């Protein structure tokens, strides 16, 4: 395993000169299908610093979930190969042994999913399932495992954990199940938590509770968070940095505030403008014409150009993720000349009006 070479730790992704916890370089994932080999993602580059909260944003099929799964090497059966490197604290997860991976998965990198019911085993108590992670990764006795499980359940906001620890998953509500999943993922004190749409299945009032919990835990235990979501509001509330993906590529990487106020990629701008919060009531919603290209017939050059209002001849060339200054990166050759609207642009929008009156 090569430790991160200086060339791989490019300065733009590294915050405050700290060494990144996770460094993904040139990651591409391929799948076997009846129609041949499909390239699901390619040239994925990003870093996550220790304790940093990063949102991975994109619409269905953009490759955000598969990028999260590939970090833990939880790839589906038709997986056909992987390019690039996934450096976690100096270890390349893309090429390390299965044994090394098992020592990291669940202990140093944990993951939670959208639907807690499919991740919890219905025939074991939640206490058993949380303690299991602990017993696999450390050499502790049953009593201590139970004590630490109780402590963790309290930490994630389960009321009277002594009563809940012996419950089965079906006895809990959706929000409580997601809390149990978070408890199980955090019990070994991971350095990185990957959360894939953790609140999409929850009601908005419960979602607010879970997002607050994730933010709080990340701050107090310095756990880095990689939050995969389609919801820009969730990212704005939870993360400090936002990586936007489109058609299997990273197209923009910026702080959340920068990306919302002044997006540099036309796709990021288009997504923001299509949100109903940001348009005048009863007015027409701006939308992005066309649809995401099919994985089987990806266009050459910029993958967004067929839907982009700013496309020109230069977009027919392959686009690279360029340094846009101030730690920002964007995959668009026209970023410097375009002045794209962000979240506060339409003056008649309810949110812009609200901000103006404050």
């Amino acid at each position, binding site marked *: 395993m090569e430790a991160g070479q200086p060339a791989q730790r490019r300065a733009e992704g590294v915050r405050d000169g700290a060494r990144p916890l996770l460094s993904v370089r040139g990651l591409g994932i391929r799948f076997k299908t009846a129609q041949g080999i499909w390239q699901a993602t390619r040239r994925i580059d990003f870093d996550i610093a220790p304790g940093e909260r990063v949102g991975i944003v994109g619409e269905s099929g953009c490759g955000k979930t598969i990028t999260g799964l590939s970090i833990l090497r939880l790839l589906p059966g038709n997986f056909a190969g992987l390019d690039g490197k996934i450096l976690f604290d100096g270890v390349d997860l893309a090429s390390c042994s299965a044994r090394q991976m098992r020592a990291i998965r669940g202990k140093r990198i944990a993951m939670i999913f959208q639907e807690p019911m499919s991740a919890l085993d219905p025939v074991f108590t939640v206490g058993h399932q949380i303690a299991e992670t602990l017993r696999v990764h450390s050499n502790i006795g049953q009593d201590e495992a139970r004590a630490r499980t109780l402590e963790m359940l309290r930490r994630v906001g389960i009321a009277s954990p002594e009563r809940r620890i012996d419950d089965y998953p079906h006895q809990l509500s959706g929000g409580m199940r997601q809390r149990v999943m978070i408890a199980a993922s955090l019990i070994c004190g991971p350095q990185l938590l990957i959360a894939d749409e953790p609140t999409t299945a929850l009601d908005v*009032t419960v979602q607010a509770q879970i997002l607050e919990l994730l933010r709080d835990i990340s701050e107090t235990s310095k756990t880095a968070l990689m939050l995969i979501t389609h919801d820009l509001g969730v990212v704005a*509330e939870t993360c400090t940095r936002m990586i936007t993906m489109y058609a299997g590529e990273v197209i923009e990487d910026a702080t959340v505030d920068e990306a919302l106020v002044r997006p540099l990629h036309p796709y990021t701008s288009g997504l923001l403008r299509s949100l109903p919060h940001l348009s005048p009531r*009863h007015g027409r*919603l701006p939308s992005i014409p066309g649809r995401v290209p099919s994985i089987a017939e990806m266009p050459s050059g910029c993958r967004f150009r067929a839907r982009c209002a700013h496309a020109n001849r230069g977009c027919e060339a392959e686009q690279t993720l360029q340094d846009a200054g101030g730690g920002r990166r964007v995959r668009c050759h026209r970023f410097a000349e375009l002045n794209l609207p962000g979240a506060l642009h339409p003056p008649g929008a309810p*949110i812009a009006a609200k901000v103006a009156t404050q």
Partner: protein
Amino acid sequence: MTAASAEPRRDAIVSVRDLQVRFQTSDRRATVKAVDGVNFDVRRGETFGIIGESGSGKTTIGRALVFLLNPSAGAILHDGIDPTALPRREFQSHRRDYQIIFQDPNAALNPRMTILASVLEPLELARIGNRAEREKLAREALERVGLPQEFGARYPHQLSGGQKQRVVIARALTLKPKLIVCDEVVAALDMSIRGDVLNLFADLQRDLGLTYVFITHDLAVVSHISERVAVMYLGQFVELGPTEEVAERPLHPYTIALLSAEPRPLPSSMRQESRIVLQGEVPSPIDPPSGCRFRTRCPHAQPLCTDRVPEWRELKPDHWVACHFADRPNFSPNNNAGA
């Protein structure tokens, strides 16, 4: 004329009076009061939004409005008449005027039928015209929702989610309904397409004079498209009023919390500092709390809220609320900071 009064407004296309819908649990030992005493009118040509979290009963109301479910008690009048009192044949032709569209177009379209065949089916069942006329109507409906001619020969799997939802809308339009209940119709669509479909709904309303009942959990969607919005909690309406009023000057603590909980895509400097995070989750509709149903999670609950069911009252013109304390002057989102 008030929403709770027995006489429907003259412009009411739907009037709902003391609606109750109850279900037996599968072991038949308990009754779920999914909808428990709801009153409202839907006015002709408007978009009436119903917002609520899962289990609030919003979908049950939607299904009851088009008589996919029968009310356990109370009445639903269509244009002033009770459709259940009609003879069977008449009832069946009557319900063509009141259509419903669901969240998942994949579940609504038969994967083995072409798009044209799916859109033709309601016309065939209604025995409208001859074959050529039906095909003409179906093709017009597809064109109306912005799908090119050649889509008629395709199968659902060849279409994107947004296109499939357009097909479902086209199919609902073939019988020229007066009202369409839209139950989470954009929830399954990606952000960038959602706008297109919402714009289509607005165009159809303008051109065809449709009335919509828009049921959703998404505050941003409901406040964008609706003229009036009702907020539902545990089988009952807690607030109903013009959208601007409800969104900007909410009266009920639940509405205030719901608006505050919504994650907003705003930079950190512009986000509200004091969000209200409600504790706990929605209680079971099998055994709802006494008095005010929201009291177990309400930051302002008083002993009175346990003892007495709050009255459904028109606190401001056209703006209804069920809360004992909604008219207290210090009862505003800004005073909820530590809640």
